């Protein structure tokens, strides 16, 4: 009787990292699409990017594995490459966020608002 | 000089003239001298090729390969020779006329006018000598584009509107129909070279051949088969020399020339006869001949009437081609030349009247023959040729077309030619009649000034072409030889 339940539990709990990834991905994208405030959009974008960090890193950890330093008596190592990649991706993400925020500051100076709709209203008069 | 040098010279002379003309922007006399010199040289070069073609040679140049399958190359066969001779000869006459007309009317921007004109002539030579469909298409488009500024020359709203129709229709049909047809041909035949007997393989189903022919006939918008003839009346906003040489000779003849060439050298007569899906062409052409004549009958504007007459006469050529009989094709080739000299005469006369009296409508022309005897005399000769009365060139081509139609038992074509002859007479003879036999309107001098003939250059030009119309009837020998040798080449290897 409990077999289907087990299966569901396995899918849900066993892959919990993937579920978190998917949740962050969708939530981030939703914020980007649904919000008109330019800063909030950037926050959403960052959440979206963060989900990718998880996507890469979580499968890199092998249960029972140690950090990849050759030691006697250890056979199972975690894969170090995802961490390295994500370190780069984080840098890229930070740069993007910084540039985005910089643009928002300039937009605020030029338009006096950071709400997308108000900006488009002003833009259509030109 | 070898054939290939002469061909390249024929292309280069007008092109170089187009480059030189702007340099003498401030010296109108030198500028005009360049045009005349180029026209003279071009005619010499083109006529130097004639003996070779008459001797049965096919002078050709090496090909420039654009990409595999696309080549720019030239070769001269009889039909192209006829076309090139007509265009280059008439360029000389037309240049003399242009100078008189443009100065007489003090038109603006004459330099760009002469430049575009020279480019158009270069493109015409390219069309005449093209060895394959791609080269022909290339120069066909250059011709469209170089004549567009000539159509919009006046720069007012009407000219821009005319130019828009002109460009949209000609460029549109060539891109939407002609180019796919060419690409389709390449896909079916694997080559685009004009070859006696055609290149389309016999394995292609008749339905496809019919569709392909439809794409060609309508894609070649310059042939002005109804219903894509609107560009020609629209182009009449251009100065008269443009209408005369380009829209009675170079551009429209490039259209029917291309149709003829495609039928003879891409499809091949035998293929079309076998396929049996080319019959519609005769109906379409016949319809255009009759309807355009009827419309011409109702036009009061002289240039418009001439334009519709041109549409009708162009479809004579298409009609003659659609009979798919050797004799009628000879007629088609002759008509390209005959119509050219006669129609240019008519346009010259129209421009002469405009320059001298600023008249554009037929109804204003009562009694004008007495003030402008040379002009109206030439007009009468051109009109007789349009109708096909001896001793004019028009008789000759009609004779061959009719004989071809009889031998092929194409009674529809015979009927169309007979009816349209009557219609031609109906819309040309009244003009001649009222010009010579009606009394001048009383307020004529008041409205149009106490004018005499147009400037001398104009009168000389139209007298020359009128004389040409008659000479072509009296001495058709070389022309006929060329046309017949095309037929010999054209009929799928029967020779």
């Amino acid at each position, binding site marked *: 009787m409990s077999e289907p339940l087990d299966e569901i539990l396995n899918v849900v709990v066993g892959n919990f990292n993937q579920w978190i990834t998917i949740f962050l*991905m969708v939530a981030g*994208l939703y914020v*980007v699409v649904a919000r008109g405030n*330019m800063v909030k*959009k*950037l926050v959403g*974008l960052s959440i*979206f*990017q963060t989900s*990718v960090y998880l*996507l*890469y890193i979580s*499968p890199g950890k092998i249960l029972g594995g140690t950090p990849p330093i050759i030691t006697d008596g250890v056979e199972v190592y975690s894969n170090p490459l*995802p961490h390295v*990649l994500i370190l*780069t*991706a984080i840098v*890229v993400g930070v*740069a*993007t966020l910084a*540039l*985005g925020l910089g*643009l928002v500051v*300039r*937009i605020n100076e*030029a*338009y006096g608002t950071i709400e997308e709709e108000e*900006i488009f209203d002003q*833009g259509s008069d*030109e | 000089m070898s054939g290939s040098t002469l061909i390249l010279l024929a292309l280069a002379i007008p092109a170089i003239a187009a480059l030189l003309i702007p340099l003498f922007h401030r010296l109108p006399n030198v500028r005009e001298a360049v045009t005349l010199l180029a026209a003279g040289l071009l005619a010499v070069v083109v006529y130097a090729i004639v003996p070779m073609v008459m001797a049965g040679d096919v002078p050709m140049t090496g090909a*420039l*390969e*654009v*990409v595999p399958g*696309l080549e*720019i190359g030239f070769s001269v066969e009889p039909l192209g020779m006829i076309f090139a001779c007509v265009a280059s000869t008439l360029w000389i006459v037309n240049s003399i006329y242009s100078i008189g007309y443009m100065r007489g009317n003090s038109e603006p921007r004459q330099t760009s006018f002469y430049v575009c004109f020279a480019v158009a002539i270069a493109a015409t030579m390219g069309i005449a000598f093209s060895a394959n469909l*791609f080269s022909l298409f*290339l120069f066909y*488009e*250059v011709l469209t*584009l170089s004549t567009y*500024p000539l159509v*919009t020359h006046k*720069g007012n709203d009407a*000219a*821009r509107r005319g*130019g*828009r129709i002109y*460009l*949209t229709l000609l*460029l*549109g049909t060539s*891109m*939407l129909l002609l*180019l*796919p047809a060419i*690409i*389709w041909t*390449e*896909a079916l035949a694997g080559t685009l070279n004009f070859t006696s007997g055609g290149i389309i393989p016999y394995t292609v189903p008749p339905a496809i051949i019919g569709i392909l022919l439809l794409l060609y006939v309508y894609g070649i918008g310059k042939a002005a088969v109804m219903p894509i003839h609107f560009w020609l009346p629209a182009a009449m906003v251009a100065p008269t020399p443009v209408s005369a040489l380009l829209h009675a000779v170079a551009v429209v003849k490039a259209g029917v020339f291309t149709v003829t060439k495609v039928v003879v050298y891409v499809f091949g007569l035998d293929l079309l006869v076998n396929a049996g899906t080319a019959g519609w062409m005769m109906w379409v052409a016949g319809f255009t001949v009759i309807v355009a004549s009827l419309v011409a009958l109702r036009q009061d504007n002289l240039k418009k009437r001439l334009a519709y007459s041109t549409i009708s006469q162009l479809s004579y050529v298409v009609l003659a081609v659609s009979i798919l009989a050797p004799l009628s094709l000879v007629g088609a080739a002759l008509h390209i030349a005959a119509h050219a000299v006669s129609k240019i005469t008519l346009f010259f006369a129209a421009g002469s009247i405009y320059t001298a009296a600023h008249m554009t409508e037929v109804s204003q022309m009562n009694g004008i023959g007495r003030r402008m005897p040379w002009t109206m005399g030439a007009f009468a000769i051109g009109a007789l040729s349009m109708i096909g009365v001896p001793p004019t060139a028009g008789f000759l081509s009609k004779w061959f077309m009719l004989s071809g139609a009889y031998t092929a038992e194409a009674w529809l074509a015979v009927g169309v030619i007979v009816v349209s002859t009557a219609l031609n007479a109906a819309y040309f003879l009244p003009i001649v009649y009222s010009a010579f036999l009606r009394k001048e309107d009383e307020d004529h001098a008041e409205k149009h000034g106490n004018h005499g003939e147009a400037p001398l250059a104009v009168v000389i030009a139209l007298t020359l072409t009128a004389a040409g119309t008659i000479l072509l009837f009296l001495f058709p020998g070389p022309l006929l030889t060329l046309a017949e040798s095309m037929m010999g080449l054209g009929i799928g290897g029967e020779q």
Partner: protein
Amino acid sequence: MTGEGLTLAQQLPALQIVLPLTGAALCALIDRRNVGWAIATLVSFAMPVISVMLLIQVLTTGPVSYAFGGWEPPYGIEYRVDVINGFLLVLISLMGAVVMPYARRSVASEIAENKQAWFYCVYLLCLAGLLGMAITGDAFNAFVFMEVSSLSMYVLIALGNDRRALVAAYQYLILGTIGATFYVIGVGLLFAMTGTLNFVDMAERIVAVEQTRPVLAALAFITVGMCLKLALFPLHVWLPNAYTGAPSVATVFIASTATKVAVYLLLRYYYSIFGAAFVFDDLPVTPILLILSLAGMFVASAVAIFQSNIKRMLAYSSVAQIGYITLGMAEATRLGLTGSIVHLFNHAMMKGALFMVMGCIAYRIGNCRLNNMAGIGRRMPVTMAAFVIAGLSLIGVPGTVGFISKWYLALAAFENGWWWLAFLIMGSSFLAVIYIGRVIEMAWFREPTGPAAEATEPPLSMLIPTWILAGACIVFGLDAEMTAGVAAQAADALFAGLR
């Protein structure tokens, strides 16, 4: 050849990236506009020399592989040049070189003086990023370079002198980042399934796991991500604003290179990694690409007709032209792919020339509104003649590069038996007649009025680059052996795959 020369020749792939990056750092450190321009010009002129040498090497001896930092592939990052990306490197670096002499006067007139050195710095970064995307043989490295080029592009666009440029840059930043993140998600899934990031290695290993769900998901993510970057309709919304708002030089450079590199990456994944059979036969990629391409070709062209700002009009035209490129991809035959690849080059030539003309006009009359261009052809005949030539090329008149592309695409359509497609291709180019014709009619067949009446030809430093590109439209239209020949080889190489 001496030993030293030999090593230098071996280092060419690295120099392709290192030189512009160094140049960018120098520009930032020195912060003088003339020095910045000099450095950028020097680097930009060196780039085509390197890329042409690389391409020749590829054509004579086969693909060039370079292990970055000495770490052997597939473990280290490999720079791998074959015919297709060699061709692309040449294209990007040539555009970079042509743009630079033009930039001096144009940038001086459009960008504040204290920012000009930074413009050259960012431009070099962008060049490095685009070249890097093209040259690298590593999936993640491609992402990094993508972001280098994108971030610098956002800055280039934001440097435009209109406040709308800021919004355009912001919009592009959001969409561009989403696109890049989609790409990196796809790469992550592929990495999880194959355990490698090296293209060649991945192509070998993917065969075993091809039909699994993560691989399919990866294909979908990469497709969407790259289509955002290459502005496939309807993912093109960022493009018109960005091209319109950016400074003239930036528009010329971005329009002729950025989307092309994204196209290349997509081609690389479809043909080299996933394999044409898997993508086009097993999955419904062809109909999707075909419909979207056609929609882009028609909708964007139709929208272009109604634009009053010509820069924006040309931007919409770019969306339509990208449709031609993806159309050739969707045809998935050797001819279609050749058309697609040769159009990468051809479109860069003609759009580059057109945007350069717009830059010249902006230099003289301050904007690119159609109403202000009445009769400008009579005042700037040489400039506007270049517009006519490049415009005719866009239309696809024979004798110009545009015709070559259309010839291949339509021939491929007939070859596939899709004769209707050939007519649609021609129909869309007919729309180009209308929107180019409007400009030509306004510029040439009206009396000069308003600001156009006082306009004069731009300085030679701007005119000559414009004419180089316009001339290229004719030269490579009459003799396309080189471009179409290399494109055909590239198509062959793509079909052959990496395995």
